[in-house]
């Protein structure tokens, strides 16, 4: 993550804060007082005056009702010689606010502190710092400069007095420099974020501890932050929290991908907030996070690491010595396919919130497709889907090639996949075939122990039906042989020549998602919707592509009759919904690819020749 991005998101967070942290009925207000308090601790010694009582109810500081005499916070240096006084404002410094918002009044009171207290007897200098987390105007600055010029330089003849101001940029810089840690967040979240940061540094991404402890803890933290914030503060705090976690865990060898996963859970939570909130400022914050944080980070990640990923067998070679490693490398390969695919889908999405022009977007699409092709060419694990749910990754792969106009490459890749799945379909491989009922745990157990009877199934698949349907967006000369091949080899499990064999035909499965899929998919794994048992499109090995295509068209027509129009909540990017599907293990609506393979205007009338 580059420093400019960090600065940008810290700025975004700080400028959204109020002057004081307090809990209100409408939600918690997070103030710069907490930030300055932590800065003071880091730079200026011990606090002698605070605007709140620490450790108040529910993790929020309790505001003091006493008169403050213009002084919000004061810190005494460790040698008791320097006193630093902060005057906080959450307004811009302008000509209008100088008096209206009491800049002038508070500063006048602040320059005359009471130094009679015993602990201040050694003070030799007093520094007054005006802190405001908004922008300023020249007139406001001029007023401040004049005030400084007119102010006394000493207090009681022996104590030096100085005045200075921190505008938003200064505050951001100092924050990044000194308090980019869990203490930057409101006290309420300090413990949670510290815990998550420590776990992120300790746990290996993907390990059991990561899955069962860190991810739930992070999701809880994000939920809590979003639930307790109002306006843009929640969406603004999440990236800062992520930056803090990253700062703690960046030395972990597996955190590069772990960071992406934390971003993804955050993105899904933010889109969920987006749907629920009517506040435009929230929408802006969510969209900003999605495009400028998550997608930017994803793109940066692949720009940095594509050289490694495109090195021959770099993913395939991960763990050696058993088929457990073979399965694991396939999982990792599909993880990367999915993320590259999301980049492409988002670029192609017309509702994309990023302000890229058509040419730039096309160029980007080609670049992402190149990355995908490089990864596919270098790693055979790509051709080893193990679970039916990995149809999501393969849809994203197909989308990436399609979006870049590389349909021939797509046909070639699907052909390669069919060849490699074929021995598995026939049971001639130690790796199991795809089945909707198999889980990663089952597959691992199967290859590790080879139990008899096997713990995996080879009976039904949504993936294979999707593969057949994906072929339908290819030109006819590429489509027909592939459709016949997939049906013969993978659906029927028949030998190409001679005796057709005794394999039971695969039960092809499809799915009618619930009407509010776009919304539901952001919540959790979807259990609603209707399963459609399709079976095989023909029972003989010699079935032609035409026969199979007719069957597929009939299926699509019938399913569209039941669910006439697939509704997508347009405001949420499709890539975000697919990302949520990936994270929650929810199948994709077939219409996502059918819109290309069986366009509405022609599917109901007649199939392509």
């Amino acid at each position, binding site marked *: 993550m580059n420093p400019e991005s960090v600065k940008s998101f810290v700025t975004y967070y700080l400028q959204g804060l109020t002057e004081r942290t307090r809990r209100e009925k409408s939600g918690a207000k997070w103030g710069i007082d907490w930030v300055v308090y932590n800065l003071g601790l880091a730079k200026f010694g011990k606090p002698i005056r605070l605007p709140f009582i620490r450790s108040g109810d529910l993790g929020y500081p309790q505001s003091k009702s006493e008169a403050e005499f213009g002084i919000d916070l004061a810190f005494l240096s460790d040698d008791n010689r320097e006193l630093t006084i902060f005057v906080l404002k959450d307004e811009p410094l302008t000509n209008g606010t100088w008096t209206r918002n009491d800049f002038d009044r508070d500063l006048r009171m602040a320059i005359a502190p009471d130094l009679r207290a015993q602990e201040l007897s050694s003070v030799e200098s007093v520094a007054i710092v005006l802190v405001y987390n908004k922008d300023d105007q020249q007139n406001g600055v001029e007023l401040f400069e004049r005030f400084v010029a007119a102010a006394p330089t000493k207090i009681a003849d022996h104590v030096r007095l100085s005045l200075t101001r921190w505008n938003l940029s200064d505050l951001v810089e100092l924050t990044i420099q000194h308090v980019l840690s869990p203490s930057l967040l409101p006290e309420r979240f300090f413990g949670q974020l510290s815990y998550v940061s420590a776990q992120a540094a300790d746990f*290996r*991404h*993907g*390990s*059991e501890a*990561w*899955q069962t402890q860190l991810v739930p803890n992070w999701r809880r933290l994000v939920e809590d932050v979003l639930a307790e914030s109002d306006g843009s503060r929640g969406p603004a705090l999440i990236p800062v929290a992520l930056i803090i976690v990253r700062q703690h865990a960046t030395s972990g*060898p*597996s*955190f*590069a*991908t*772990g960071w992406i996963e934390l971003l993804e859970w955050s993105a899904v939570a933010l889109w969920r907030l987006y749907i629920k909130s009517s506040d435009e400022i929230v929408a802006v914050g969510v969209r900003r996070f999605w495009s400028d944080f998550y997608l930017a980070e994803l793109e940066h*990640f692949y720009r940095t*690491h594509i*050289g*490694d*990923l495109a*090195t*021959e*067998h*770099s*993913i*395939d*070679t*991960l*763990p*050696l*010595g*058993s*088929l*457990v*490693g*073979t*399965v*694991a*490398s396939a*999982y*990792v390969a599909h*993880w*990367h396919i999915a993320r590259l695919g999301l980049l492409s889908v988002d670029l192609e999405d017309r509702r994309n919130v990023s302000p890229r022009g058509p040419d730039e977007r096309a160029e980007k699409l080609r670049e992402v497709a190149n990355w995908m092709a490089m990864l596919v060419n270098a790693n*055979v694990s790509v*051709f*080893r889907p193990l679970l039916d749910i990995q149809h999501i990754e393969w849809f994203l792969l197909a989308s990436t090639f399609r979006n870049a106009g590389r349909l021939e490459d797509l046909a070639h890749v699907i052909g390669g996949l069919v*060849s*490699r799945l074929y*021995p*598995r379909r026939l049971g*001639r*491989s*130690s*790796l199991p075939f795809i089945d909707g009922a198999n889980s*990663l*745990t089952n597959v*691992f*157990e199967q*290859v*590790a*122990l080879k139990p008899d009877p096997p713990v995996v199934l080879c009976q039904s698949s949504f993936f294979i039906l999707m593969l057949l349907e994906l072929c339908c967006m290819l030109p006819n000369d590429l489509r027909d042989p592939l459709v016949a091949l997939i049906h013969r080899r993978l659906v029927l499990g028949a030998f190409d020549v001679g005796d057709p064999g005794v394999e039971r035909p695969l039960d092809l499965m499809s799915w009618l998602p619930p009407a509010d899929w776009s919304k539901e998919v952001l919540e959790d794994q979807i259990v609603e919707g209707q399963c459609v048992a399709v079976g095989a499109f023909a029972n003989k090995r010699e079935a032609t592509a035409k026969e199979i295509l007719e069957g597929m068209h009939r299926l699509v027509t019938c399913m569209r009759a039941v669910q006439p129009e697939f509704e997508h909540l347009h405001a949420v990017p499709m890539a975000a919904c697919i990302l949520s599907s990936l994270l929650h293990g929810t199948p994709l609506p077939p219409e996502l690819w059918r819109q290309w393979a069986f366009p509405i205007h022609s599917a109901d009338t007649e199939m392509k020749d």
Partner: protein
Amino acid sequence: MTPEVFAARYPHLAAVLMAMKTATSANFPPDEGSRAGLGKELVDLNQSTESLHNVLEGLFGQPFRPNEDFVHFSLRAYDFLGVSNDVCVFMGRLWAEAISACDVSQRGAFLMKLIEERETLFGALDFAVELFGRVKFTANEVFPWIEKAHHSVGKDLFQRGFWGCLEAYCTKSTEEAITFVGRWLDTNPQGPSLGVATNMIAWLRLAVVSDHSLSPRFAAIEERVRGGGHSAWRALYIQSRAYGVPHLVIGEQEALQLRDEYVRHGSEEEVAWCFLLNSVLHVKPHEEWARREARRISRPQLPEPAKYWVAVATLDGLASCSDHVSDHADEYLAIFSQLLPIGAESTGIWEHVYGTLKSLLDTRTEMARTLMKTLAAHSGETWLKIARDRQFASLFHLLRQKNLHRFVAEDLCFHQNVTARHLGLVIFSDCNVEGISTEALNAATDTQIELLFLEALRRLMDFGALARLQSCIATRIDSIGGDLATLFHEECALQCLNTYKYRSELATCARNHEYLPDIVADATERLANTAAASKSPALQMEVPGMARAQRMHDSKFVREVAKSVKEHSVFLSSFPTVTILYGGNEFRTFVGDRLMEGPSKMHRSSAEVEVPRLEFVDPETMHLRRVAASNRIAQLQGRDITESGRES
């Protein structure tokens, strides 16, 4: 006390006999001189005809009766006198002397006492051979004895003494033996009990030659067996015709009559017939018809015991052939090949095959090579199985010792038969063949070269051997060019990525080749790039559930390896396994009532095997390449037949 005269003539023997009488534990003369003296005295005594009655009376008092003490005394003979035929003869003489002191009622009881104890049974049977050769017994006397003795040793591998007793009984008490066989048949013997009748009939046939008066009674027994309506009895009869001195061997006419009358496919008579052929095959002048009959009956479906006898006969024939009668060798080989394939479970036949091969490797290597080619072509699958199970591994050692491994490998590697080629690769690999000779390479057709390359491609073999093989055929393949050369170079590159062993061996063997060194260098560089890239932060994630699965896999792997080691280790299978709970560095053993002194150090043994990398990195590609190679082989085999026809 032994008589003084006896003790004077045979001092060592007299001393030992006294010790046998009195001592509680065995005291076989420990020094070489005493053992030599004792042996000489036994030989001298057995050559004399003097009575041993005085010796018995001297040892056991007068009047001598063969009581319990005497039986106990005599059954300790092996312990005190050592194990030799002379001891058996001496003890048999003592028993014959003893039994002469018995009345009729005591003889049977004495005989039974001799075989009462299981521990001394085999010694008793050894000694009794001489007894039955010296004393006539009635059928009534010996029937229960033979029944009990047969029951005791019938399932044992060592039956020499028992059969020796029966043979001696048939020779000495021929008439009573005929009666005995009749009674034995009355009991309707089954299984191994039939062997008693078989053998006795065979020995009686020899005995009646010298006593024609018994011929009618013997003929009646023969007739009863042949016409009894039992397949097993007819087989018994045929088998009994296998024994005999050369001039009594069954003649061709009689044999063919037997065959026509009794032998049917798959019957017990067929097994007996093969047994008969085996015994006759090497007896002149009968060998001609016996060979002819063996050829006639040989077929792959021959029942297992029958196949065994024909295989033994032909392999022995092959082993006995000298070069100048090699036409018979061809005939034997032809008969043997008709029997193939031999099942992997036919251990007896395989033992004989390996024995013959070893013998031929010493004397006639060409014939050994021919036999191996025949075996590989017709029984390759089972031979492969046996080779994989590491049975008879000594043959491969012998091949290497005799420096014939390369020739045999070449014979088989360029063989037309698929399994023969596979076996060739196994021999190439297991015998560490350095390479294929230029002559063999030049003599091979392009198709043979391609077939060999494809066969190696689709088999899992030692990777060092694969590198040696491929480096040998590289130049030929380059000259063939086209798709084959492309595939070959691809395969070399792939295998370079697969194992270090292949890479290093190829770098050594093919250092002068035009392309292969570059392929090795390129692969090394690619592997280095992969290793560097796989350290990328983008690839350090752990897959959920992988750690648990790897633990399960490793535990299973360790269990299977331990089980396999125990199965294949004579040492480990002989001793109980003790699981050590505490103290893993040293051990002591508790024996009786004390700890063995001084702790023993634990020893660790381990073995390393290089895992072929691509079998896990890219199992699908490896599988598909093998399938493609198999398809191409099938295509070439079809074409090969046509080509062979045209070339011939």
